[in-house]
């Protein structure tokens, strides 16, 4: 997998993408939550919803 990622990313690109984790959130929290809700509604419509989704 590492080889495959290296094929599609330059090192700088990968570093920059992952460094997004370290930056303070720039996004509007309302947007983040609203988008989460919209996407989850879309996922449910597309794939259905399972009853037990514990993180076992």
């Amino acid at each position, binding site marked *: 997998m590492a080889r495959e990622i290296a094929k599609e990313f330059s090192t700088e690109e990968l570093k920059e*993408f992952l460094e997004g984790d370290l930056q303070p959130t720039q*996004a509007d929290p309302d947007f983040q939550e609203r988008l989460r809700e919209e996407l989850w509604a879309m*996922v449910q419509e597309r794939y259905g919803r399972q009853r037990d989704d514990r993180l076992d």
Partner: protein
Amino acid sequence: MTRPGVGPSGPDGALTTWSDEALFERVCAGSEAHFNILYARYFRRIYAFIYQRVRNHADAEELVQETFTVVFRGAANFGGRSSPLSWIYGVAKNLVLNHLRRSRVQQERIAQAGREPLVSTSPHWSYGPEDQLALRRCAAALDAQIAGLADWQAEAFFLRHAENLPIHEISRRTERSADAVRSGLYRVKRLLVRAGALEPESESP
């Protein structure tokens, strides 16, 4: 099917112990808990990556929405063709490049239009001094809010509310997805409410 994840560490240990592949499998099986972990793992990365390039929160929000929509719509089909990380990155990168290309074309059109003479088609209105003061204040508040909008969002709002076009037609004209158009219209209305130009109850898209 677990390995140390590449996501951000956090108080929830699950963020670091589930692989992207395993999370996608569970999302496609309908698990909200696993969906939430994937979303949290990638939201900040994608937002930061996109914002760095477009430098505009309105455009960044639209592109983040499109990226996640493409990713979760295709989640069941990507089936190991590539790693989720490179796939998601690729989607975000392509959408940003397309956006920047469209923006350049749009800017050229605006520059072209700016060189043409502007002829007013509005009927003649007469205002008193108080009306004029109120209008100027309203215009100043609107200007401040509208500065945060992307050109296409202002265009979408005009098409929707001045020309009464349906969403699918606005989507076609602005070359944006219907979801992006709805989201853009919602954002414009939110800004207008903040500027005091709309009543809060009419804020929903």
